[in-house]
C-alpha cells in the first residue's frame, strides 16, 4: 500500500541512496525522510510531505518527519497541534483534557469553543 507522494520499496522517486534492508538511507533535496514502521520492519521512505501525525523539519543535513505529540493527531510542528486525539480539545494550538472556564468543548471538532 503506498502513501500519496511515494511508492514503497528501494526504487522510490525521492530516494538518493538506498539499501535492501533499510530502504532509503538519504533523500533528494526538498524530500522528507520518514521512518515508516511496517510490522517488525522499519524502512526509510522519502516523501514530498510528511504523513498525518508527523511534521516536517528541514535542516542542512537532512529533512525529516517527526512524530507529533502523543495527544495530537496532526500538527504544524512540535508545539502547534491542528487536530487533537479523541478525548483532547484544541486551545491555542495545544491539546488539553478540559477547556478554560469561559469555553466549552466541541466533541466533533475536538476544540474548545466560546460558550
Amino acid at each position, binding site marked *: 500500500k503506498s502513501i500519496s507522494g511515494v511508492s514503497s520499496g528501494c526504487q522510490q522517486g525521492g530516494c538518493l*541512496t538506498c*539499501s535492501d*534492508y533499510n530502504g532509503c*538511507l*538519504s533523500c533528494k533535496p526538498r524530500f522528507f525522510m520518514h521512518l515508516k514502521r*511496517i*510490522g517488525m520492519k*522499519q524502512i526509510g521512505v522519502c516523501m514530498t510531505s510528511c504523513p498525518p501525525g508527523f511534521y516536517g523539519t528541514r535542516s542542512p543535513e537532512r529533512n525529516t518527519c*517527526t*512524530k507529533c505529540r502523543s495527544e495530537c493527531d496532526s500538527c504544524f510542528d512540535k508545539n502547534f497541534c491542528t487536530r487533537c486525539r479523541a478525548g483532547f480539545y484544541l486551545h491555542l494550538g495545544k491539546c488539553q483534557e478540559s477547556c478554560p472556564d469561559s469555553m466549552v468543548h466541541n466533541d466533533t471538532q475536538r476544540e474548545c469553543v466560546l460558550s
Partner: protein
Amino acid sequence: EHPLLRALIKVTLLKHEATGKPIVVEGLFVGGSAGKAEGRLMQYHPLSLCNTSEDERQDGDFITIVKLEHRVPRCLPLLDKARMALDKGAQAVIFDVSDDANAAAELREANSFSRPVVLVEAQGAEDLMGLVNKNEEANVVIEIKVEPKWLHYDV
C-alpha cells in the same frame, strides 16, 4: 584484556513456535554486556536512533536489530545509539556491522551497557536480516555461548 564473550542468538518465527526449529546465529557481546535476553525482534532504521523525539514506543519485551550502513552519516556516536535503543526499552540491541567496517571497532571500545549489546556480521547477519525482510513476527533469545572446557587443556 578480557576476551569478548560470544553470544548465541536463537530466533523462532512465532507462527512456528510450537514446532519450528529456531535459527541460531552467533554474535559478539560488547561493552561488558554479556547476558541473557528475550523479546520480539524489531528492526530500527539507523536514522531512528538520532534523537529522543516522542517517537514510537513498543509494547512488551522487544529486541532491537539495526543494520548499520557506512553510507548513513552518523548523527550520534554508536555508543550513544546503543544506549538510546536501550533507553527506548529494548531488552537487548543487535548491530549488523557487515556494511560498516568502523562500527565493530567503535563498539568494542564500549565498557558499560546496562543490557546486552551484540555485534553480528557475515552469514549470521545475512540470515538474521533475511528473516527481518520476511517481516514475520519472531521471538529472540540471546544467551552466552559456553565454550567446551577441553579447549583449554594442552594435549
